[in-house]
Structure formats: structure tokens, C-alpha cells
């Protein structure tokens, strides 16, 4: 496979090549392997990977697609490499951030110091669609709100990792990380062994420990369940995968019932008490008595059982206030406020439409900004100014003026790119990274995470619902350990890609 016709985009950072077309040191062994392979070998590996994924049932569901609701997540076989040194910094940054977010939630639903001190605008907090007044005055077990967090990182034009958004409700994707590692290990067996890649195997154990940490009953084997909306949910594969890997029972709302103040599941042997619920349904659907009365996905009385301490929920209800897109700009301030530290990972510059100056700026510069709806996700409710029509811009201007609380804007960032197999050739495609952070008795980060790739040329949107695919992410062992192998053939001074 030829690398010398690989095109670099002068506007964005490429992870495999420097601006002058040199292969970055950690990528040399991979580049050499790719050069040695024929195009059909690469394609054959991609087919092998697709087949493995399909036969394992690694699928997600697209609602609008009539051709068949189950799809295999498009998988790209070229792994993404991150050096151990760079990762150590990212890891520290993520832990710092998640600790601050957790303290913020405890504060917002408790003393509200940060609001009284005027660091975060109270109006934005109360106006957040994820704010749950039912949580006020209630302290969850072990003071943990955000047991599982998926933080989305991107690389800017200089290659720095920035935080694009925090997902602290029930982020999905961890199962794809594990499955796709299993597949890539088989497809690129030799290469994988050559590199010293930090393993992911412990994730399920960590998740289990994280959940056990908040169990209300101290017993040898508390009952952990994973509450799923059921097999028609887009992330059902993941729910079942995680339940299996950590030895939890996968339940649906109809399997649960509250009896004598405790949550129980219906079994062939009668009712059986549940200790910890890893819920993968939104707050709104948890309990029809307290939240949406028409929900049949949850269980009546569940929230009262939670408040009384009879059962633990992960993540806690109401965490959505912390990943609201209008609260996001305040996270660096939270880090300073609660931890007295400077943020290790930076945010993307964000304009908040409720602020007069910011709104004015947004309306005047809409063509160069990315507009996001504060309570939307999955790439929906978004306008990328540089790729928009005049009507779309007018429409968004109107919406922003009508409901400023619902919008923020960020400069359009040329996301870092990664070589990706497109029609048998390597082309640069935009990628992001979602590492998973687990908050138990200590805070732990999965080495790497989900690398999503925008498969459409020039697209900046990586969401699976918008035509995104994914890659395996290899975090290399740290300095001194076996990290990237040395390679003599793809030498450092011979440009392999079209430099600019």
C-alpha cells in the first residue's frame, strides 16, 4: 500500500505525518507494515474485521434507516497511536476534570456555594434541561454522582488535545472499544505484538468495582443490575456486553418492582432484591411517579427507594446539569474553584448566547462558528457555519434570538486527522477520542478509548448516527517500557506523504 500519495491537509494536524510529510516516530513501524502490504491485503483485513464484528453482533441501530435497523459500526483497521507520555498528561487532565464535575454536582444539589459566589450563573444551572430539583438535598452513596464519564477530546490545528464536551449521564461506546481491540488484535496480530500497547482488559472489573463501591448493603455479593430500555435501543449490544462481562443481570423496567421500599427483580424464584442499578436509561424515564408519567421503561417507586438509600443508581439522576453545553464553558473555573489548580486540559473557546456580548458576536460571525444546541447530542441540532447555506444561518439566527439559553457557539476547529482506508486507499479523516473515566473508590481512566472517525470527506461530525466509524486506539507503554518498536526501513528523514 502506497503512502506517498497520501494527501495532507495544510489546515489540520495529521496524527501519522508531520506537516512536511515525515512519519512521526511512534508511527514508523505501522507505516512500514502498511507499505509492505498490498491493497488487497488491507482490504482483506478490513473484510475480516467486518465479518468478525457482524458475527459477534456488534451492531448499533439507526432509527431512520428503513433498509434494516441493525448496522455494523463501520470499522477502520488502521489503529491510532498515542504515546505513553502524552497519554499520562491526558489522564491527569481527565481525572482532574471529573473530580471537579463531581464536586460541582455535589455543590449544586447541596450548598450551592459556586452559585452564591457568582462563579457560575445560577440562571444557567436552573435552566439546564438536565437539572433535577428532586436531587436537591440528597447526597448519593459515597458522594459519587458521575460513576461513568465519557469525555470527548479533539486535537486542534497544533495537535493539542482539547475537551469538546463532557458526557456525564450515561455515555455509551465502551463495549465498542473492547470489541474492536479484540478484533484488531486478530487482524494485526504481529504488529500489535511489536508495539507495547496498554491493555484494556481490566475495564469490566473496574466497572464492577465502581458499582460495588456504592452498594447500600455490605454483603459478599450485592446484586448489580444493568437497566436497559431493551433490545430495540441503539446501544443494546453494549448493555448486554457490559452486563455479561461484569457478571451483572441485564434487566428492563418490566423486570423490576418496588416492594417494601426496596427495588426487586422478578425471577423464576420470586422477587429478589437489587442493590446497585447501572442504568442506561435517561433520568426522565427512571420512575413514572417522579419523572415522566408515561414512561414504561423505568419502575414506579424507584426514585423513592433511591432517596431512602435502599438502592444505588449509577450515574446519579440530575448529572445532566454538568454536561449541559452552556455549563461546559465554566468547567475550567470549577477546576480552579474546587481544586485550586489550573486546568490541565483546555476547553474549546465557547460563546454563550445568553450573554449579550457573546450573542452579538455569534450573530455577527455565525458563518465562521459552530452553533450547538445546549441540550442536544449525537450531532443533532448543530450548525457548522463554514459549511452552511444562507437560509440555514438565518434560521439559526432566529432560533438563537428566540431562545438564547438553548445555544452556544464555538469557532470551527479543523479536527486532527488520521489515515483511514477509503476505497482501498489511505486518506486523512477527522477523528475525535472518547476516553472513559470511572469514579469509584479511586478515579481511573481506560487507556485510550473510542476513536470515532468521520468517514465522509471533509466532514467534521464523527457521530455514528451521522455516518461515523471507529478505530482502535493504542496507548503505548510509557518511557522506559516497550513502547513503539524501532524501525530501520521507514527512516525518519524520508518523507512518505505529500508534504505541503
Amino acid at each position, binding site marked *: 500500500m502506497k503512502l506517498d500519495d497520501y494527501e495532507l491537509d495544510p489546515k489540520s494536524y495529521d496524527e501519522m505525518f508531520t506537516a512536511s510529510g515525515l512519519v512521526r516516530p511512534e508511527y514508523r513501524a505501522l507505516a512500514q507494515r502498511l507499505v509492505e502490504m498490498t491493497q488487497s491485503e488491507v482490504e482483506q483485513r478490513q473484510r475480516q474485521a467486518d465479518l468478525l464484528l*457482524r*458475527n*459477534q453482533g456488534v451492531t448499533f441501530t439507526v432509527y431512520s434507516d428503513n433498509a434494516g435497523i441493525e448496522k455494523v459500526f463501520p470499522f477502520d483497521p488502521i489503529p491510532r497511536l498515542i504515546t505513553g507520555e502524552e497519554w499520562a498528561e491526558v489522564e491527569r487532565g481527565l481525572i482532574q476534570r471529573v473530580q471537579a464535575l463531581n464536586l460541582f454536582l455535589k455543590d449544586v444539589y447541596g450548598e450551592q456555594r459556586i452559585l452564591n459566589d457568582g462563579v457560575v450563573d445560577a440562571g444557567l444551572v436552573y435552566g439546564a434541561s438536565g437539572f433535577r430539583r428532586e436531587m436537591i438535598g440528597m447526597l448519593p452513596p459515597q458522594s459519587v454522582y458521575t460513576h461513568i464519564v465519557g469525555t470527548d477530546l479533539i486535537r486542534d490545528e497544533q495537535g493539542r488535545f482539547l475537551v469538546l464536551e463532557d458526557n456525564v449521564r450515561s455515555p455509551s461506546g465502551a463495549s465498542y472499544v473492547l470489541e474492536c481491540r479484540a478484533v484488531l488484535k486478530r487482524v494485526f496480530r504481529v504488529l500489535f505484538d511489536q508495539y507495547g500497547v496498554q491493555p484494556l482488559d481490566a475495564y469490566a472489573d473496574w466497572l464492577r468495582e465502581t458499582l460495588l463501591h456504592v452498594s447500600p448493603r455490605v454483603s459478599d455479593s450485592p446484586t448489580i443490575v444493568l437497566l436497559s430500555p431493551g433490545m430495540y435501543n441503539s446501544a*443494546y449490544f453494549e448493555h448486554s456486553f457490559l452486563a455479561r462481562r461484569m457478571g451483572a443481570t441485564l434487566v428492563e423496567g418490566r423486570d423490576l418492582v418496588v416492594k417494601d421500599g426496596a427495588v426487586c427483580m422478578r425471577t*423464576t424464584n*420470586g422477587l429478589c432484591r437489587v442493590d446497585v442499578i447501572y442504568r442506561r436509561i435517561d433520568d426522565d424515564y427512571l420512575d413514572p411517579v417522579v419523572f415522566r408519567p408515561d414512561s414504561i421503561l423505568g419502575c414506579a417507586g424507584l426514585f423513592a427507594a433511591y432517596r431512602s438509600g435502599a438502592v444505588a443508581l449509577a450515574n446519579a439522576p440530575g448529572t445532566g446539569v454538568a454536561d449541559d453545553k452552556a455549563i461546559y464553558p465554566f468547567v475550567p473555573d470549577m477546576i480552579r474553584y474546587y481544586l485550586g489548580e489550573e486546568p490541565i486540559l483546555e476547553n474549546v473557546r465557547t460563546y454563550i448566547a445568553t450573554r449579550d456580548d457573546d450573542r452579538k458576536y455569534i450573530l455577527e460571525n455565525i458563518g465562521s462558528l459552530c452553533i450547538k444546541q445546549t441540550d442536544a447530542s449525537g450531532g443533532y441540532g448543530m450548525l457548522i457555519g463554514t459549511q452552511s447555506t444562507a437560509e440555514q444561518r438565518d434560521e439559526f439566527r432566529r432560533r438563537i434570538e428566540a431562545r438564547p439559553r438553548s445555544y452556544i457557539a464555538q469557532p470551527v476547529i479543523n479536527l486532527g486527522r488520521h489515515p483511514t482506508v477509503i476505497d482501498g486507499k489511505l486518506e486523512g479523516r477527522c477523528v475525535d477520542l472518547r476516553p472513559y473515566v470511572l469514579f469509584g473508590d479511586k478515579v481511573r481512566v481506560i487507556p485510550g478509548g473510542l476513536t470515532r472517525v468521520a468517514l465522509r470527506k471533509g466532514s467534521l461530525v464523527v457521530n455514528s448516527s451521522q455516518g461515523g466509524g471507529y478505530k482502535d486506539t493504542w496507548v503505548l507503554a510509557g518511557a522506559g517500557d516497550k513502547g513503539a518498536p524501532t524501525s530501520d526501513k521507514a527512516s525518519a528523514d524520508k518523507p512518505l506523504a505529500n508534504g505541503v
Partner: protein
Amino acid sequence: MLSRVADALFWMGRYLERVEHVARVLDVTRSVLVDIDEVDPETAKSQLRGALTALSLPDAPTEKLIFDQNEPTSLVCAISRARENARQVREVISEEMWAHLNQAYWSIQEAHSRGVHESQLSQTLGGLIAASFLWDGVADGTTARDTGWLFLKIGKFVERLDGSCRLVSVRADGPPKGGPPSSESVHWVALLRSLCAMEAYKKLHPQRVDKKHVLDFLIFDEAYPRSLRYAAVAAADFAQKCAEIHGPRGKAVERAFGKIASHLEYADIDEVDATGAAEFLRELLGELGEASALLQRAYFLQ
């Protein structure tokens, strides 16, 4: 075990057994007619109609009975439902079971979109039978003998008993009167082969294929795994093991299945009289329905 999960396993067992049974009956009915030269068209038609009635299938072309997504009794629907049940309980069944079932599902989908010629239908049916056999093997080799296993097996044998009982009861009276002399033997051979029992029967009765011996073998044989008696005893055995785990709530179920098994264990063809066989089997079906309802109440509806 979650009631919903037990329910899904029970039905998964049933659907996969049904796939095998239906596929074989369709295949045999089609091929028997080809094998025997002097079958007249009327006998052929009545054989096929009889088989479809016994399977509760509509009178439709075989291709439709295999591939039609909109026909709820089609084989593709049975596989899809088994897979949906499996998908619901993926964390309970083994990776291998899921992977195999998933593969069977995709290969029938692919065959359909590729298009299958009339002459290849037999091969498709054979593939489905093999998939079901393989499923049994995979399940056998990779599942812990726990509660889930029991429900899977009860489902399997309830379906086998139900399917065979229906087939034999529809066929027990022999071919329609007035057909050519050959129609009698075509009829019983087809029935034996539909239950995969030709060879086993021939070992016991190498001389003749006649009504009394065929019915005796298919209903009362102790050792052949597709006889009604064998299926009933197996179902009762699993129901009893299930009751051992679940205590008093399982007693009524155990008794109901045990009664069915006893009927078959302590009777023979002379007692029910070959002419009364169809009636005997219809009663058995009624009892099986009641036992299944009890099972549902005891374990699946909390």
C-alpha cells in the same frame, strides 16, 4: 433467573426445534413425492396438504414458507424470533451460541437476497436442519447446566412433543381412501422420514412398513429420541429438575409433565388401539397445552 429471561430461553428452545421439524417435514414431503415413481398427483397433493395442516402452515409455495418475512409461520420468522430472544438474553447464553445463531440468521437472509432456485430449496432446508443440529451441539458444549439450561431444554422438548404429536395425529388415519395401493406405503414412509425415523424403524421392523408398527414406534418407542414417549419423558425430566431448584412453585408443573410422560410410558399401541390413536394424541395435545400454561404461570409471570 429473571422470569423474562427464562421465558426467552424457553421460546428460543422451541423456535429452534421448530425450525428443524418444519424444515424436515417440508423437505421430506417434497422429496418423497419425487422418490416414488408411481405417485399419482392426487396422493401427492394430499400428502403435502396433510403436512402443511400438521405444521399449521398455510397452503403456500415452499419458497414462501421458508423466506417470507410477512408470513409469521415461515422459517425465516422462526429463526428471527429465536435470534430476537437470544439477543434479549445475550448475557445469559454463551458467545458461541449467539455467534452460531447470528450466523444462521445472516446466511438465510443472504440466501434470500441472492435468490434461491426451486431446485436448491432442498439444499436450503437441509442447511436449516444442519443449523439447528449445530445449535444443539453448541448449546450442549458451551452451556452450564443451570436454570437457564433447563428452560431451554424444556422448550425444546415441549416443541418436539407438540410438533410430532400434531404430525402423527393428522397422519394416524392413513392415506385418503380410494387411492392406489402404493399410496399406503408412501404415506407411512413419508411419516417416518418426516420424523427422521426411517432407519431406526427399519432396524426394529426390517420386514414391513405398516400402520400399526409405525404408530407404535413413533408414539411409544422408548429409545428413539424423536418418539413422543421419549420427548415427553425428557420434558418431564427437565420439569422435575426445575422444580427441585424452585421448590413448591414448580410442583404443579412437574406433576403435569409427569402425567403426560406416564400416559406414554404405561400404554402401547394395542391399548389405545390403532384406530383410536388420533383421538389419544389429541387428548395428549390438550394436556400438553395445560402443562405449558402451568409452566408459564409458575415461572414466567411474577
